[in-house]
């Protein structure tokens, strides 16, 4: 029989039992729908995470104090040694693969401007911090090398801090106090939005690292060093260089573990990718189970259908249909059924994804690969689970089928 006729016959028999067909493919609809919805949301989420990560700055390497993992066990970031100004100076002098470096001395406190005050964090940085972080200013200027040398009490406000203290007014040139120390505002940072952990990256004040280190801290320990490798390809080499310098500086013996941590964007992306990978596996399992259930439903209904239509099969065989014609007819019916389920599932999955995304205020990404994958997979389910009933139908003896009651 021609394909057109076969598909027509399949549709006809599916439409004859609309309700039954719908219930049969419900498993597939739910399976495909769930996967499409979750994958679309997941991809939307990881796209926004990736955007934020790349917002950290290009080729960024972060150097933290503390023990590295030993056999997978982390001893806490702050244990034992610290990163000192001395380490920073040595790195500046002895590395060749870092194009920019800045300490990040963290402090915090109550900021007072006139009758307003605001609690925020104060980070001591060097002039090239903006370059390392791919950041910029909307107003004024940034910390200069002279500011660092002279430990000047100048501050660059994050967007949030500026808005909290000055509203729409221009803060540049204004005086503020951080704790007891008076600072002069010299600039305002560009808006950066939420960070990966959901924290407000604009709720910050940047100042010369020397100022923060000597006036607000112990004058020795730097919390973090932010560095930027010369290129993405040189990242690993830069890692090694930093390790070598820091191990020397910390006088570590060859067998000792590093007492500092290096993190880069790639690490973070990898972590995010791991999370996404686990999520994908979970989704795959959900999809697998529900498609299995859906497939069994199809198999069941096809077996019922073959039994119900034994006489029809007998008639077809008697007027010259071959076993193969019958096989193809029932297979096509099973595949049509499962594809209908697949298509409904895809559409409702996209709809559901959009609804959920709207609720939690983010956007979804509908990946065509996933959509086609779901479509073909549901077709494959139809073939796989339709095969046995179809085979059974095609093996019928014409006489027995004709006389079936």
């Amino acid at each position, binding site marked *: 029989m021609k394909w057109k006729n076969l598909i027509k016959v399949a549709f006809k028999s599916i439409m004859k039992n609309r309700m039954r067909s719908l219930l049969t493919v419900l498993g597939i609809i739910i399976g495909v729908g769930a996967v499409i919805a979750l994958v679309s949301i997941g991809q939307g989420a990881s796209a926004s995470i990736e955007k934020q990560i790349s917002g950290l700055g290009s080729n960024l390497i972060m150097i933290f104090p503390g023990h590295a993992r030993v056999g997978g066990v982390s001893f806490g970031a702050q244990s034992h040694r610290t990163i000192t100004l001395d380490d920073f100076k040595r790195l500046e002098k002895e590395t060749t693969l870092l194009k920019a470096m800045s300490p990040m001395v963290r402090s915090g406190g109550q900021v007072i401007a006139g009758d307003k005050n605001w609690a925020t964090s104060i980070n001591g940085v060097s002039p090239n911090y903006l370059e390392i972080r791919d950041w910029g200013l909307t107003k004024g200027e940034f910390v200069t090398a002279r500011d660092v040398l002279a430990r000047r009490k100048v501050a660059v406000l994050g967007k949030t801090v500026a808005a909290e203290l000055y509203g729409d007014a221009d803060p540049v040139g204004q005086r503020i106090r951080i704790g007891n120390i008076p600072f002069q505002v010299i600039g305002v940072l560009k808006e950066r939005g939420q960070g990966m952990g959901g924290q407000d990256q604009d709720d910050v004040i940047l100042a010369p690292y020397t100022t923060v280190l000597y006036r607000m801290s112990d004058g020795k320990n730097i919390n973090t060093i932010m560095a930027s490798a010369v290129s993405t390809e040189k990242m690993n080499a830069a890692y090694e260089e930093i390790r070598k310098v820091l191990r020397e500086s910390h006088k570590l013996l060859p067998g000792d573990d590093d007492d500092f941590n290096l993190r880069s964007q790639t690490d973070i992306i990898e972590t995010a990718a791991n999370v996404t990978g686990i999520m994908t596996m979970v989704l795959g399992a959900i999809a697998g189970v529900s498609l299995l259930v859906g497939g069994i439903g199809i198999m069941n209904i096809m077996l019922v259908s073959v039994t119900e239509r034994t006489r029809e099969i007998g008639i077809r*065989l008697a007027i*010259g249909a071959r076993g193969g014609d019958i096989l193809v007819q029932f297979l096509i019916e099973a595949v049509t059924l499962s594809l209908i389920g697949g298509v409904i599932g895809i559409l409702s999955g996209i709809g559901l994804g959009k609804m959920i995304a709207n609720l939690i205020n983010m956007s979804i990404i509908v990946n065509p690969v996933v959509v086609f994958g779901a479509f073909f997979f549901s077709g494959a389910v139809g073939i796989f689970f339709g095969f046995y009933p179809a085979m059974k139908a095609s093996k019928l003896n014409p006489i027995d089928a004709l006389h079936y009651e």
Partner: protein
Amino acid sequence: MKTIELKGIKKVYQMGADVEVHALRGIDFTIETGEFVAIMGASGSGKSTLMNIIGCLDSVTAGDYFLDGVHVNDLDKLQLAGIRNHKIGFVFQGFNLLPRTTALENVELPLLYDRRGRIKEPRKKAIEALERVGLGDRMDHEPNRLSGGQQQRVTIARALVNEPALILADEPTGNLDTTTSVEVMTVFQQLNREGITIILVTHEQDIARYAGRIIRLRDGLILKDEPIKDYRSAADDLIELRAAGEALEHGESREATVR
């Protein structure tokens, strides 16, 4: 030319471990091309079994079956399907139309399974076949909206649509009243006149007389095989029957008005 040649055909049905039903116990006969043969016999005498074997729907237990000189015993499943499609038109005991499928689609079906690609416009061909049996105005009806006689004529249209050399009809008039039966026989006689070999099973002597030869079965054996001398035209009988029927109807309606 011999269309059918049966030599010592036996059919045994195995029922359970040790019960055997001997449906046919050695049948020999030959049917020439263009013959119109009626097969008669009591219920259970093996008529349907024989038809199924001739129609290549069932296999023999013993004996040899030649159809147009081809030894059917040697054919495989696919070849048998081909023969059923191209050579034989089958009208079954009971109507056996696909339910919820229009008359036209039912008739078209054998053409859709025809792999020879001979017929370019199956739809047109099916319409012609339906018109031949006088159902040109019922093509879009599904079987449950057709009368018994109309359904039977649809199965005849389906049997002849692929231009078979042989039409097998198992009790085609079994469920029909006299007038409708004769109507159906008119179609068979006309097809036979066009050269198609016809074998028809019936247990009604009146119907059998429209054939040219009667083979009588009893308990799986041939009891009698004889030609019919006086040819009866179903078309002529139909005219008579209709006239009588009309007279009867008029009588009834007159009676009704009197009351």
